[in-house]
């Protein structure tokens, strides 16, 4: 087999197995940084050995066994084989021995869950959480992460290294959080995954409107988490939200790459299968009987759009009610701004404008293009053309995404006609 082919196959195996390999090693050594390092060393060894000797029947078990031996060798080399390490080494030796011969390798789901919680630990910066999660849970290479995040490879490397050092410095245990912090910590994990998704869904800078690959990685992580925690309503709620939003990917950009707004999208391009998967995830969230959280509510709004055959059929009254619930559960100016849009659709632009003006007078969203762009839109619908145009140009000046800026400038120009 050509070496290039083996390389691609090893990458594929890594993609499938790495989270479980790193999780198993982290469980055994109690050190996620070491686990990641020795797993990478095993990967390098695989790339040297497999082209000659063929890919083993159970590549995950092979990689885990090799990585464990590397961990033991490392301890021996650094003469740190104190009593605790000696016991661990004996245990690893025995397990490595057994897994060599075992026909099936049974990693434990709980270990992967621990890995998720540690990668999203609150001692880490958001950037480190994102990089470490994509790396150890998603099984992506540093190069892939760099490409998707539009940052240099060295930056991703630095973030991962720093993350490992921080976890070691804070002596973060390889454990799932205890019940008293469970809700907060799970919320942290969900926000990391959603951040990865939104970063891909609407690029915050540059001219890339959509980074579908990154959004799909977040979806994959969301599905993994939903598999690990099927009875957590917000895990299902987040998955539902991402599936429903992603179902519109194909309809969101025109052929020249410019964005198409919800009202103008060709709904025949929405992915019906994905909408169905999103609705099923929301149904699973509801089936827990614990009510909808912020993600579940946002998914419910996305569902209202997904089920409307045409924009004119949208059930805006229902969307307003869901936004009201959302703004009480998770108050934020963005939610209020969206609520204003929904209100304007349900009962007219004047009512929407009242909410926007309230937000503006409170100084909310200062510096963001979102508020003036909505305000400009509402003013235009009220026939206050001059004010609308000025507001849209303010918004264009604040937009950080080239495509969005172009849309706003076009809208302002259209008002002059």
């Amino acid at each position, binding site marked *: 087999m050509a070496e290039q082919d083996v390389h691609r196959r090893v990458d*594929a195996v890594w*993609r499938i197995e790495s989270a479980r390999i790193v999780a198993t090693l982290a469980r055994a050594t109690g050190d996620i940084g070491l686990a990641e390092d020795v797993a990478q060393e095993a990967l390098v060894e695989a790339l040297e050995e497999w082209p000659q000797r063929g890919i083993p029947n159970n590549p995950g078990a092979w990689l885990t066994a090799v990585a464990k031996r590397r961990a033991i060798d490392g301890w021996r080399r650094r003469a740190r084989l104190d009593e605790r390490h000696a016991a661990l080494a004996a245990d690893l030796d025995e397990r490595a021995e057994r897994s060599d011969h075992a026909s099936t390798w049974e990693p434990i789901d709980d270990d992967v869950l621990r890995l998720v919680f540690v990668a999203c630990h609150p001692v880490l910066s958001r950037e480190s959480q994102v990089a470490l999660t994509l790396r150890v849970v998603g099984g992506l290479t540093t190069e892939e992460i760099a490409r998707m995040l539009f940052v240099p490879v060295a930056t991703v490397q630095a973030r991962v290294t720093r993350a490992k050092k921080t976890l070691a410095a804070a002596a973060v245990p390889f454990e799932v959080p205890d019940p008293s912090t469970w809700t907060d910590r799970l919320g942290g994990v969900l926000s990391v995954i959603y951040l990865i998704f939104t970063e891909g869904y609407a690029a915050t800078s540059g001219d890339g409107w959509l980074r579908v690959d990154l959004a799909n990685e977040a*979806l*994959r*992580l969301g599905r*993994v988490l939903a*598999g690990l925690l099927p009875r957590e309503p917000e895990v299902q709620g987040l998955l539902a939200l991402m599936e429903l939003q992603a179902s519109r990917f*194909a309809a969101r950009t025109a052929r020249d790459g410019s964005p198409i707004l919800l009202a103008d999208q060709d709904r025949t391009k929405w992915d019906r299968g994905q909408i169905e998967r999103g609705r099923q995830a929301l149904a699973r969230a509801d089936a827990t009987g614990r009510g909808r959280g912020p993600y579940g509510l946002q998914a419910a709004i996305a569902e209202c759009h997904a089920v409307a055959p*045409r924009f004119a059929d949208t059930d805006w009254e229902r969307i307003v009610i869901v936004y009201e619930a959302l703004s009480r559960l998770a108050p934020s100016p963005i939610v209020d701004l969206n609520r204003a849009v929904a209100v304007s659709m349900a009962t007219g632009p004047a009512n929407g404008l009242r909410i926007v003006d309230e937000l503006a007078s409170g100084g909310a969203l200062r510096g963001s293009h979102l508020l003036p762009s909505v305000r400009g839109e509402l003013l235009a619908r009220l026939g206050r053309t001059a004010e609308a145009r000025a507001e849209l140009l303010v918004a264009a000046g604040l937009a950080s995404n080239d495509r969005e800026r172009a849309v706003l400038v076009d809208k302002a120009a259209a008002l002059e006609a």
Partner: protein
Amino acid sequence: MPKYMLIMRSNQAAVEDYESMDFEAVINAMGAYNESMMKAGVLLGGDGLSDAKEGFVVDFASETPIVTDGPYGETHELFNGFWIIQVSSKEEAAEWAKRCPLGPGSKLEVRRVTDETDFADYADNEYVQKEEQWREELGTK
């Protein structure tokens, strides 16, 4: 991320072997396989197909399509089910396919599901043009 369809095909002997096997063991093995893909976040959907004897074939050989009962006569392989997975590469699709608990006489055909980009060259196609026009008329453009 591309999507792939894993299409299960078996010859008559394998189908008969299957019928003589402990059905519960078969369900367990397939269940574990499905669960592994579900937990890895790659499984989008899939289903098994009922006995080919219940099926029928619509043949377009002549001007009027002809409906014939039972499985397709001349072929020696029967379609039994399918999975749709979303993975990072063709190689990853192959790795998942190889893990399927099937035996001799069975095959998995792996095909990429087409997406928008496959039709990018056909933007001037008559149907695509019609759709554009239709959208303009509906005022949705």
